[in-house]
Structure formats: structure tokens, C-alpha cells
């Protein structure tokens, strides 16, 4: 798609602006309304997909000025992309919203405080694995010293700094040893590998969900795939792109392209990812760097190799597990797996392959849980209401555990269990399907069942 020449009077100021042709695809049929969690919650069309597109068009054709009110409607979007699944006209909503946010970011349309926090955390912390790890150790200390329980019990934080209390409720349990990229190479397939893959370990997963990575490497090794985790990799930049910090996202993308596909080397058969939000963004690297002469082709080639773990496991075929796990599990479709990548069946195939495991479906398993990256922190009120609705659906299934495919969703749902599972019936931590599969393999080997 060609980029319109920068128009002097246009409200847009960068080449990342929403594409007018893509905006024009919306025929305002309204099919997306009922799929949208914020329309459901707020009950106004300004906070619906069709409404937000109309606002973008209003800006685009100069009928609207970019008021804080307009910005608020954009900010309240979860970017869950349920509207894309519902849209018969295939409007690329996610892309349009990212473009709009990129403009908002470039044009300084955020409150000052929000900008400062963003710069400190998203630019100063997330891109640097070592700083992330340090922060992780800080969290570990806070949790292991008993300080966290003290703070939570006393309710002090809630009174002094409610926002911090919300963040605290969402903080991961850092009780497991952090994942180190060097671990991957220590597990190898028994026979000559039938394929090789590079694992994207990400910024938060090694700290919050290290066992998901361990399970991923185990499962693929068992199925004949040699997995490595390039040590020079960095955060994928999904959160940056979703927030509109597109330049930071591009920097991170270039670093990862260099780390995974150094010039002159052969591409791995798959660039594997077990976090849905990262996966959908990695698949967009081609689009992100389309105007970068040095990286455009490499980015496109990179994007073509990206595979979600469920997707690839089903694609290459996997050994049926035999260890029994007697458990009722409900599967939450992570938005960026189902709506953004169209992957719905594969995770269920993995789950139902496990003997003893019963899959108990929710009424709307593909409705957002309200996590949405940093949304749960910046738009906590809406996020909490969306979560409340999700949890009532979850509890209605009578499941023992929630399985999902993205770290943000796991944190949010764990907070949901803590808040809503009054009878303390559920396993308090949600789990990734790949971990259940790994466990079933292990139990099978040990001749046990659970």
C-alpha cells in the first residue's frame, strides 16, 4: 500500500498514520458491536469498534479535532481485536488502532505523567534483559521476605497508593528460578532432529513463567526438534507497538532480526513463541519495517518463520501423551492467539490429547479477560469489570484450572481467581497447554498418573 504524501493540513503527522483506504473498508454495518468488550461494558458506540473507526475517519477527513475526549475513546480500546473476527469486511482494526496510537504518541497526546512513566519503564526497563532481571530479583526479595504478604494483609498499600495496589495484585509469583537462554541448548532430541527452531523467550516470561519455557523446550525436543534460544534476543516490542511507541518497537525488532537471523546464516525452520501477544506482533515484523530499506526483506522473511507453539506442534504432528491428568480445565482463548492469529483449534487439540483431562468450555472463551498488555494497569476500572464478567463465565464451567496462552492473560486470570473464587476451589495459578502436555509426557514416562 502506498503512503499518501504528507498533507500540510492533515491531522496526521507521520508516515505511520492510519491508512485511508483501510479506514474506507468499514461500511458501518455494526456486526462488530456485540463482540466488543468495551461496548458491552460502557454501552456507548463511541467505545465500539465502529465508533472508534468513525472517530479515526473524522480525524482523517478533518471533521473532528483531536480532543482529550476522542483520545479517551482510543485509550479505552483493549486492542483485543475481537472486532476483526466479527467483521465481514475484514477491516484491519488492530493495525488502524496501532497507527492511531503511533500518531498520538508522536504528537504528544498523552498526559505528561503517563509519558514520563512510559519512558522510564517501557524505554528504560523492558528493552534491557539485564535490568529486567534485576527488577525480577527485587520482586523476588519483596515476595520471599514476606513483605508482600504483609503489605497485602494490612491493606496499607490500597489506602496509600491504590494504583500500586492494583499493580501488586497483578505481579507475578517469582518463586521459580528464572529462565536462562543457555538452558535451551542443554535439552536435545534423542534422535537426529527432524527440524530446528529458535525460541523467543521474551522479556517477562523468563521471570514470571520460566517453567513454560522449560516445558516448551522439553516438548519439542521429545518431538524431534532441536531448540535453541539466541542469547542476543530482546523484548519483542509488542507492548511498545500497541502503545504507539513505534520507534522503540522498530529498534527492538531490528535487534531481534539480527539475533535470530544473522546475515549469512540459514533461517531456523521455525521461530517459536509461546506467548500469544508476542507471537502476533512478531508475525507483523514485516509490516512494521516495510519502509526500512536495510531490514524490510529480512523482516518479512523473519515474520514468515514465526510460529506459535500450539500451531507448530499440530502442524508437525506430536506424540500422543499417555500420562493421565485427571483435571477439569477451561481454555481461555488469548485474544492475540484467536482474534489476531486465528489459532483456536490447535491449543484444544493439545489439551484434549491428554488422557484424563476434561475440557470444559466457557460460554464465550474468546472474550477478552481485560488484561490487554498494560491496559489492566492504565485502565484498571474497565479492566476489572471485564475480568469480573470473565470470571463468572470461568466459574460457571466448574473447571479446576484455567489454561491460556499468554503471560498477561495468566497474570490477570490469577488475580481474578484470587478475587472471585470465593470457595477456593480452583488451582490458583493458570497454566499454559504446553506445560500440561509436558507434565503428561513426564507422568507417562514415570508410569504414574495424577
Amino acid at each position, binding site marked *: 500500500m502506498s503512503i499518501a504524501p504528507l498533507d500540510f493540513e492533515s491531522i496526521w503527522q507521520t508516515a505511520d498514520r492510519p491508512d485511508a483506504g483501510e479506514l474506507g473498508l468499514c*461500511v458501518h454495518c455494526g456486526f462488530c458491536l456485540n463482540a466488543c468488550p468495551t461496548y458491552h461494558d460502557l454501552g456507548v458506540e463511541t467505545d465500539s469498534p465502529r465508533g472508534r473507526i468513525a472517530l479515526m475517519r473524522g480525524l482523517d477527513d478533518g471533521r473532528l479535532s483531536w480532543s482529550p475526549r476522542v483520545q479517551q475513546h482510543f485509550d479505552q480500546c483493549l486492542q483485543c481485536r475481537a472486532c476483526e473476527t466479527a467483521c465481514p469486511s475484514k477491516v484491519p482494526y488492530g493495525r488502524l488502532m496501532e497507527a492511531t496510537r503511533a500518531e498520538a504518541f508522536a504528537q504528544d497526546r498523552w498526559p505528561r505523567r503517563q509519558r514520563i512513566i512510559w519512558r522510564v519503564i517501557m524505554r528504560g526497563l523492558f528493552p534491557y534483559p539485564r535490568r529486567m532481571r534485576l527488577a525480577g530479583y527485587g520482586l523476588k526479595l519483596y515476595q520471599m521476605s514476606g513483605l508482600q504478604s504483609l503489605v497485602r494483609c494490612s491493606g496499607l498499600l490500597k489506602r496509600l497508593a491504590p494504583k500500586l495496589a492494583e499493580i501488586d495484585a497483578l505481579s507475578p509469583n517469582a518463586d521459580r528460578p528464572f529462565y536462562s537462554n543457555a538452558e535451551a541448548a542443554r535439552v536435545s532430541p534423542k534422535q537426529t532432529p527432524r527440524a530446528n527452531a529458535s525460541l523467543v523467550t521474551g522479556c517477562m516470561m523468563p521471570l514470571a513463567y520460566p517453567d513454560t519455557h522449560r516445558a516448551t523446550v522439553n516438548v519439542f525436543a521429545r518431538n524431534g526438534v532441536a531448540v535453541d534460544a539466541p542469547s542476543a534476543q530482546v523484548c519483542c516490542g509488542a507492548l511498545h507497538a500497541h502503545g504507539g511507541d513505534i520507534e522503540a518497537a522498530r529498534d527492538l525488532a531490528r535487534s531481534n532480526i539480527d539475533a535470530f537471523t544473522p546475515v549469512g546464516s540459514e533461517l531456523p525452520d521455525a521461530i517459536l513463541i509461546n506467548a500469544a501477544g508476542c507471537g502476533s506482533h512478531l508475525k507483523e515484523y514485516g509490516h512494521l519495517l516495510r519502509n526500512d530499506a536495510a531490514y524490510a526483506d529480512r523482516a518479512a522473511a523473519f515474520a514468515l518463520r514465526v510460529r506459535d507453539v500450539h500451531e507448530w506442534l499440530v502442524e508437525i504432528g506430536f506424540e500422543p501423551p499417555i500420562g493421565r491428568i485427571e483435571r477439569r480445565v477451561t481454555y481461555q482463548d488469548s485474544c492475540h492467539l484467536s482474534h489476531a492469529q486465528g489459532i483456536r483449534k490447535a491449543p484444544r487439540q493439545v489439551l484434549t490429547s491428554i488422557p484424563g483431562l476434561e475440557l470444559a468450555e466457557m460460554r464465550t472463551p474468546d472474550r477478552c479477560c481485560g488484561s490487554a498488555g498494560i491496559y489492566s494497569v492504565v485502565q484498571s476500572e474497565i479492566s476489572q469489570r471485564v475480568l469480573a464478567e470473565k470470571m463468572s463465565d470461568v466459574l460457571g464451567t466448574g473447571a479446576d484450572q484455567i489454561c491460556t496462552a499468554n503471560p498477561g492473560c495468566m497474570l490477570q486470570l490469577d488475580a481474578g481467581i484470587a478475587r472471585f473464587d470465593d470457595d477456593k476451589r480452583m488451582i490458583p495459578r493458570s497454566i499454559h497447554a504446553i506445560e500440561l502436555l509436558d507434565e503428561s509426557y513426564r507422568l507417562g514416562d514415570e508410569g504414574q498418573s495424577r
Partner: protein
Amino acid sequence: MKTPTALVLELIEAIGDDAVVWHDEDLLVYEYDGTIDRGNPDVIALPADTDDVSALIRIANKHGAPVTPRGAGTGLSGGALAARGGVIIGMNRMRQILNVDAENKTALVQPGVVNLDLGIEAERHGLAYAPDPSSQRACTIGGNIAENAGGPHTLAWGTTTNHVLAVELVTADGEVQWIGHDTRDEPGYDLVGCVVGSEGTVGIVTQALVRLVPRPTAVRTMLAVYDSVRDASNAVSAVVASGIVPAALEMIDKMTIAAVEPVLNTGFPLDAEAVLLVEVDGPESQVEAEGARVESILRRFEPREVRSATDHEKREHLWAGRKGAIGALGQIMPNYYLLDGVVPRTKLPDVLDAVYEIAERYRLPVANMFHAGDGNLHPCLLFDEREPGATARVLDAGGEIMRVCVDAGGAITGEHGVGLEKRDYLPWIFTDADMDAMKALRAAFGPTENFNPCKIFPAGHGCGEAGHQHHAQQQIAKFGPKAFV
């Protein structure tokens, strides 16, 4: 900074400020529905219950502001547009299913309930809500009642009017009334029948008691590919003549096939002229017998092939080309104009020829999909609104196509309503006396001046120049304004 008007302040006082939308930038998103037309409301009010609705209407009346009800705004005739400004009453927050009575097979719902959500709830009781417009994922029961919505399964089960037993209505003067009864045949006039299909011009439906039907235990879907529309149409007539009432009988034409095939991999031959979809449902034994008979009828008209499926997934695959048609057309041109005419079934092939001729004359690609069993056709004109003059061509072509339907002994709407969009064409099917009688009926429900003004009847005073009107005038000048009966 805009200051709220006295009207806005009073509305806010009545229902709270998070239920009233009045800032300019926010009003912009309530300008449209699923059509091309636009209307500019002054304020949107979002009631939570019947009392709110009544209060809102009274406040609007006090200020002399027009009132327009709105559901999900998926309508295709501009019914939910604020043609003369004023207050839009958005019913979307009243979305509770109040009760499902499985024994008596009824459900009591608020009007903002989405059609599919009712269907899913009914399914939990082994029942179904029969009217299934293609927009069912989003459109509301209130909007369905107003437009007397239909869908593929209308052939066997009838349109919305056959499924509404009673409604709670707030009339144009703010009075609340229950109309109808939970028994199926009430003595006296069928007033519910007047409300259903009244396009939101006689009051606001605030509750509805609807009929549910048993879920079929078995379903069989058949798909037949034909080399000519005439063969396909003859097959349709033969199926209907056989006495079997299929649950659905749908047709798509060549252009639609060409659009869906590359996107959805339906496996349709690109040079086929028509694809028929027939569904039979009911108890297992009946489905088996009727399915076999339908299949043999379909085969009599020399199809290229007939496919058949009974399990859910395979049936969905057969339906994919029909259900995904609109979206696939978007790959050819960004905008579509979906027409809605009905003609006697036997006239389908001739009418279709005329539709192709008109579309070609206006240089517009056209794809056709129809509820063939009902003779309800939906020509879909494709265009790009950014191309200067394209919208005008579409509206002109649309007018001519409607005329063709009328000339064939049909009508200008099958299920989308007259609304704002087709009101000027009404004299093509009704005499002045007919229209006066309808206006008198409408007036019997309450004052009409400010309640959903400018809809159904040809433009009155103060309705302004809606986008399409100029084109309608041209067509009327060409074909004459009078009833063709």
C-alpha cells in the same frame, strides 16, 4: 467548550450523565446505521428501563425535540437515523433476557437483547429463536420487531411477526402499554401485528414476549451447482411445489461465486451460474425422507453436482459461501449497497436479467444472493465511495432495480424496511388512499409529528434533503410517481 442545552440538562437529570451523550465528537458516531444515509442527532439518551424511556419521551416532547429509537444500528433503510435531529433513544443497554419459559416455549426479553444471544440462551433449553437475519450477531430484538426481520429460516418459520406474542410499548406521548397476550390467538384486532414491522414509528418496544420453537434433532444441508439461473430457479419452484417446506432455500449467483471462491475455498466452479442451498430439518426419519426427495428434485434440473452434509462442521462448510458472501465482496470493492426486493418466485430469472442489465448500464459490479424460496432478492451493488459520483450512480441504479421488482408484481422491500431510504418510492406500490389509511393507523398510537419523523411516508415538511432524495426524485420523474397495481 460546548455547554449543554436545557434539553440535555433535563435528560441528564432524569437518567444520569453517563447515560447521555451530547458532545459533538461523540455524536458523530451516531450519524449512521448500515446504510449510506446520515442524520445528525442533538443528543443520545441510553435508558436502563421502561420508566426511563417514558420519562425521556416526555422530556423530548416538552422541548419539541424529535425522538428516534435505535437498536444496534445495523438497519439497512436508515430507520434509526435522526433525520430531523433531536433525541436518539438507544436501547442497547436494556439487554436482559428476563425469562425463558421452556414449557410454554416463550421468552420475555428486553429490546436490546442481541438476536444471537437469545438464540444461544434458547439453545440451552433445547429451543431456538427462529428468525435469523444474517445480521443476527449484532442486531437487536427491538430492531427485528421494528423491521419485521427475516432470514434464511423464514421460509419454514415465518418472519419476526410470527414469533412475537406481546410487547410492552411506550407510545409517542410517553404512555406505557402492554399489547398482545401470551395465548396465541387473542380476540380483537391484531395490534401486535401492527407494531411488528412499524419501523419504530408507533412507539418504543421496551419488552417483548417471543415464541421459541423446538430445536430440530436432525439437519441436512444440500448444495447444488447449476449452469443457468433458470435451471436453479426452476429447481426452487419444483422443491416448493412438492409440498416440502425446506428450512432454508438460498441462491447465490456467478459474481458471488467468483468473490467467495478465492477467499473461502468453497470449491465452487468459477464458471457456474448459480449455487442453490437447501436445508431440511426436523426429526431424523423425516429429514432422511425429505432430504432424499429434495435431492432427487434438485438432480432433475441437471446440476453439475450436488453435495450433501448432515454433521455440523460439514454443513457449515457448505454454508460458508452464503454466509461469508458480503465480506468476500469487500475484497472486490470496499463498499456495497445491499438492495432488498421481493418478486413472485417464478419471475426470478427475468428480474435477475434486468438487474444485470441495469448494473452494467451504470458500470457497477453486482452480486446477487437471495432467499430464493421467498422470492426475496438482495442485489448487492459494489462501489468505492471515494470515487466521485459513484454513490450517485449506485442510488440511481438502486431505484431502477426497485422499479423492476415493482413491475414484476413485487415490492420494494422484503425485510429491510422502507425507512428513510425508500420512502419516496412508496407511491410505486400504494395509492394515496392506501397511505392515508396507514397514516391514520399510525396516528391511532399517538402523536406522529415528532416521533421518528421522515420515515416510511414520502418526504414531509422539514425533513431536509436526505442524501438519496434527489436521486429518488429523478427516478420518480422517469417512471412516474403513481402506484403500479
